[in-house]
């Protein structure tokens, strides 16, 4: 009997694994990281001593519960940490653990691959000292380090205030927070955000704490330039400039969809995420019978929703293989997920996508940091008559480098859409390719 496989041991994957085990199914849980937990609940190395409260703040209880569940599962299920799924086809996943390659057959698979930061490049973004917001958080949470002595936080989205707060609280010097969203947008969003009063309260708390502790918060402030030669020396926005030696920036998150793509899932345009996403029903069933989707990898909804979606997808698997499941529990989960959806719309109002970014990006800006392709080079390809993103990639290598467009792909699509006068949806999406991350030479698959 081929196993039910879950890819990704974040809040969605761990909850899915627990749910399956509770119903008598022993899943195989594959995760790229050493200790699991995903990104938001990422665990520090074993010999570190900070408390959960220090690491996760208000979320300490939730993070600990997720970690506890994984620890309990680890010895009774087929848990494979430090394992990359680099390819998928014909009900089989190709994995790499250290230098050991394997092929894992599955009867059904739950894809819970999470998210990375959504990046809109600015001049200077490849300098040492510039990191994504998620990266800045990982440096602190996972390694006890700040990304510099004097750090500026820029971009938008809930993570902006959270990470700036975490840095300041840990004793780092936060020189400024630049939020590209105007204050008026956040006021407009209040009615929808009130649907999740606790989450809203936490966001307001971080913001107020920063102000109370003398951190300058600028709203409607768009990062225009990061200065420096060998490393960061300052930032500029509007008519302002400020000295700093590190910058963390991002505009919310983007889903990791490559694996769903390789598994053959159909994608649909999603306005709220401003992205092409694998289609799923309210239970997490994809367009492919054996493939289920849960968590931020199928659309950004946050850690709480990831847990609910992980449980719901596992219950869908159980229903589909003829096991009895609690229908009341299913209705409750779907209700919670629907409520989060409304809150998510509120967040999009509060932190709107900066639609003017593409028009304002200078030609000389490096768009693709792997292949070092500039905005001007992409525009030149568009001017030759190309506008489909994979076609543009073939012409100028944007998104073709080692990261497979994870960092630049969405920004490239924005540039192409703006230049060609088409909608961002029409430009299409970068197709996933195996291996979805670079592999060492000479990997041999053991049967």
């Amino acid at each position, binding site marked *: 009997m081929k196993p039910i496989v879950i890819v990704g041991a974040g809040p969605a994957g761990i909850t899915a694994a627990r749910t399956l085990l509770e119903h008598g199914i022993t899943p195989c849980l594959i995760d790229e*990281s050493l200790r699991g937990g995903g990104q938001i609940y990422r665990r520090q190395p074993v010999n570190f001593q900070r408390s959960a409260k220090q690491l996760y703040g208000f979320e300490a209880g939730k993070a600990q519960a997720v970690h506890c569940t994984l620890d309990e599962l680890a010895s009774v299920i087929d848990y494979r940490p430090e394992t990359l799924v680099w390819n998928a086809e014909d009900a089989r996943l190709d994995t790499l653990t250290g230098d050991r390659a394997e092929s894992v057959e599955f009867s059904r698979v739950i894809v819970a691959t999470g998210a990375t930061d959504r990046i809109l490049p600015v001049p200077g973004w490849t300098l040492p000292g510039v990191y994504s917001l998620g990266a800045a958080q990982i440096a602190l949470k996972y*390694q006890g380090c700040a990304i510099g002595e004097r750090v500026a936080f820029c971009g938008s989205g809930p993570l902006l205030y959270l990470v700036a707060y975490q840095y300041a609280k840990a004793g*780092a010097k936060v020189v400024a927070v630049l939020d590209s969203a105007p204050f008026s947008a956040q006021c407009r969003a209040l009615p929808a955000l009130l649907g999740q009063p606790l989450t809203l309260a936490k966001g307001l708390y971080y913001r107020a704490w920063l102000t109370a502790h003398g951190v300058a918060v600028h709203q409607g402030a768009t990062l225009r330039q990061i200065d420096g030669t060998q490393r960061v020396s300052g930032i500029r926005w509007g008519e302002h400039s400020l000295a700093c030696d*590190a910058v963390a920036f991002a505009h919310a998150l983007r889903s990791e969809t490559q694996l769903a793509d390789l598994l053959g899932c159909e994608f649909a345009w999603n306005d709220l995420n401003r992205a092409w996403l694998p289609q799923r029903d309210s239970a997490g069933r994809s367009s492919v019978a054996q493939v289920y989707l849960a968590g931020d990898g199928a659309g950004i909804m946050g850690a709480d929703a990831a847990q609910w979606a992980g449980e719901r997808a596992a219950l869908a698997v159980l229903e589909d293989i003829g096991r009895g499941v609690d229908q009341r529990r299913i209705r409750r989960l779907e209700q919670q997920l629907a409520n989060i959806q409304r809150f998510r719309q509120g967040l999009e109002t509060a932190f709107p996508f900066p639609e003017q970014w593409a028009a304002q990006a200078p030609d000389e800006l490096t768009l693709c940091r*792997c292949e*070092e392709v500039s905005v001007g080079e992409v525009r030149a390809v568009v001017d030759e008559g190309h506008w489909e993103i994979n076609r543009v990639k073939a012409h100028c290598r944007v998104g073709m*480098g080692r990261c497979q467009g994870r960092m630049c792909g969405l920004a490239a699509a924005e540039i192409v859409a703006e230049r060609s006068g088409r909608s961002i949806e029409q430009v299409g999406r970068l197709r996933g390719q195996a291996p979805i991350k670079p592999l*060492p030479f000479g990997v041999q698959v053991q049967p």
Partner: protein
Amino acid sequence: MALFKRLAETRRPALAFTLDGQPAEGLLGDTLLTAILTCAEHLRGSDFSAERRAGFCLMGACQDCWVRLEDGRRVRACSTLLEEGQAISREPGRRA
């Protein structure tokens, strides 16, 4: 000069390693990225302009933190833990 600043967890056992042949020191539980960037300013040179890079995403997605180990293996510095005595080298990158 260092890029990163240690704020917590500083009382861990020290691990000696070499960076481009020069002796350096990190702490048990450091990733290669942390160990290098707490004593230096970059990790690699870029592939088309040899521009200095120091990683970007820290979660194994951007592939911009690769360093070379003594045995010839190329690893992501953000997701590889430092070991005592490692000889790490940084690639200068290439110009197109």
